[in-house]
């Protein structure tokens, strides 16, 4: 509520994000020391040759690989954490996460269907894959919400169980489809594990409109989400058009998830872990929680990716495996905390 309380979280998280971004472009099979990195990038911007990189090798690595990868990961992390925070507010449930409630798997199924028709890297693929992912994700969230709903509330257990069931179903269909298409099998498997982040500049341009719309929208719905925390009836008595607010939230959060899945595969737990850490540190006001979660999500995914690329270098672990390794224990911890009542 107070200015001095809201300024510092943004500053802290932004600094973490900048550090993560620098680390992400510096670390890899070839380590680029910070002074070199600075020199290469600043001279590229000025249009002059870098003295520390006379042959332009580093510049090629940066502009061709690491910068687009960093930007993609940052957008995906922001989208996952932002939508996770929004789903938690929407379902008034601490364990809502695009992965756990099955939205990611639904988006995955949609994306695979589109990929079977068009390679994701062709212009038609760049347009159709995210659209198909969005349709799959929207269908899943509606089915899960319908299955889990008891009267006016969505109990935690029901939400997770419905999420697991629908998600398993979607994953099974996805796997069956992949077996059928032998050529794409390996690629799709890696992609499913969150290890096939699309790199290069054209995917960045393709994902940008979705991410911009979804993230801007999610940042703007913090106030209605706050009011919804009192429950449907009280929100209506406080003057909120509840159904409209809900549909807008579902559409935006699902769009963000679908964009993330279409361009980076299924990466779990970011949407769960980040909003929780933010909530513990800076409270539950969604007007602050959602933008802070986005910045935090971008940082966490960048750092996880650095770990994924370095732990058993030169081999790369799919980043989704690392987020699951970190996220699953966190999930259990939240489950315990939320039983203790006074946290959520």
């Amino acid at each position, binding site marked *: 509520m107070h200015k001095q309380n809201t300024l510092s979280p943004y500053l802290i998280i932004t600094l973490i994000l900048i550090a993560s971004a620098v680390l992400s472009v510096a670390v890899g099979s070839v380590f680029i020391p910070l002074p070199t990195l600075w020199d290469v990038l600043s001279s590229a911007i000025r249009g002059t040759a870098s003295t520390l990189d006379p042959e332009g090798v580093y510049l090629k690595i940066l502009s061709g690989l690491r910068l687009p990868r960093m930007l993609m990961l940052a957008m995906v992390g922001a989208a996952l954490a932002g939508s996770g925070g929004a789903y938690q507010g929407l379902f008034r449930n601490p364990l809502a996460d695009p992965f756990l409630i099955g939205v990611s798997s639904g988006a995955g199924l949609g994306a695979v269907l589109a990929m079977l028709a068009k390679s994701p890297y062709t212009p038609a693929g760049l347009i159709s894959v995210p659209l198909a992912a969005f349709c799959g994700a929207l269908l899943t969230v509606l089915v899960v919400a319908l299955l889990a709903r008891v009267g006016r509330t969505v109990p935690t257990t029901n939400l997770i169980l419905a999420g697991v069931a629908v998600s398993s179903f979607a994953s099974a269909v996805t796997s069956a489809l992949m077996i059928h298409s032998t050529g794409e099998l390996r690629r799709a498997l890696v992609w499913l594990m969150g290890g096939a982040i699309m790199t290069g500049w054209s995917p960045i341009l393709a994902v940008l409109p979705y991410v911009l719309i979804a993230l801007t929208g999610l940042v703007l719905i913090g*106030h209605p989400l*706050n009011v919804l925390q*009192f429950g449907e009836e009280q929100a209506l*008595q406080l*003057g909120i058009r509840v159904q409209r607010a809900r549909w807008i939230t579902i559409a935006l959060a699902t769009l963000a998830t679908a964009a993330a899945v279409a361009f980076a595969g299924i990466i779990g737990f970011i949407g769960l872990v980040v909003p929780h850490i933010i909530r513990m540190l800076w409270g*539950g006001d969604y007007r602050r929680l959602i933008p802070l979660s986005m910045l935090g999500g971008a940082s966490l995914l960048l750092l996880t990716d650095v770990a994924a690329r370095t732990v058993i270098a030169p081999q790369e672990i799919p980043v989704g495996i690392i987020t699951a390794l970190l996220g699953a224990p966190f999930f259990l911890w939240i489950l315990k905390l939320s039983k203790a009542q006074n946290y959520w």
Partner: protein
Amino acid sequence: MLEVIAISASYNHKPIIEDISLRLDKGSVLALIGPNGSGKTTFIRAISGVLPLRKGTVKVDGQDINNMSPQQRARKIAVVPQARSFPAAFTAEEVVALGRTPHLNWLGKVTERDMVIIEEALEKMDLTALRSRAVSELSGGEQQRLFLARSLAQGSPLLLMDEPTTHLDLQYQLSLMERIYQLAHPSDDELAKGVQPRTVVIAIHDLNLISRYADQVGLLVGGRLITLGKPQVVLTPELLSSAYNLPLQVIHERGFTLVMPSNPPEGRKDQ
């Protein structure tokens, strides 16, 4: 101020309240009493606009609440919920601030004037010292005061409350009712400062609090309004005994009206 004209409402296709009419003047407290299932909660929900009416009209300051948007309605009617569902991660101040929702835009940006009103509401309910506490850390009585503060911040002339004293000990029950009475009957000081008297409708089980704080009492039985009048008119052994299906006596003692069962406890030998 409040006009209820022949309303009927159903819940899950079951008719709950039938043909209720009443008028309430500005600055008065109406207590709704009646046995469990007599339709008190349904009546409150129906006149708050969240439960569609099957028949009849509800008007606040002459305007039909059915023709209002949720926002317009919330500016006229504030509902104090039973403190059951609340966001534990919010602070007391954040909860009170959300009471301003019907006056805010989609982004929920509060102005200086909103801040003043929020501050007054916190102060009035003695919550200023607790403002930064998480809702989950407050006691039941404090939470109930918090929700009252939220509806004060809402600034609506009509306040609706469903069993606000449940789960409160005697001290908190009295202090809450005292505050509610003062909202409807501001002191001369407050009136001089421009404080508007609120109109209060309150569903309540405790019959002994009513004679102290209610201006009007409505007795609901089986979804119908049996009697409406001053406490001394409604709190009679005849009306209450038949409403609650139990022999009751009414004792007037030093200006208080006490309602008690007439029969001694069954099977108890030491009395």
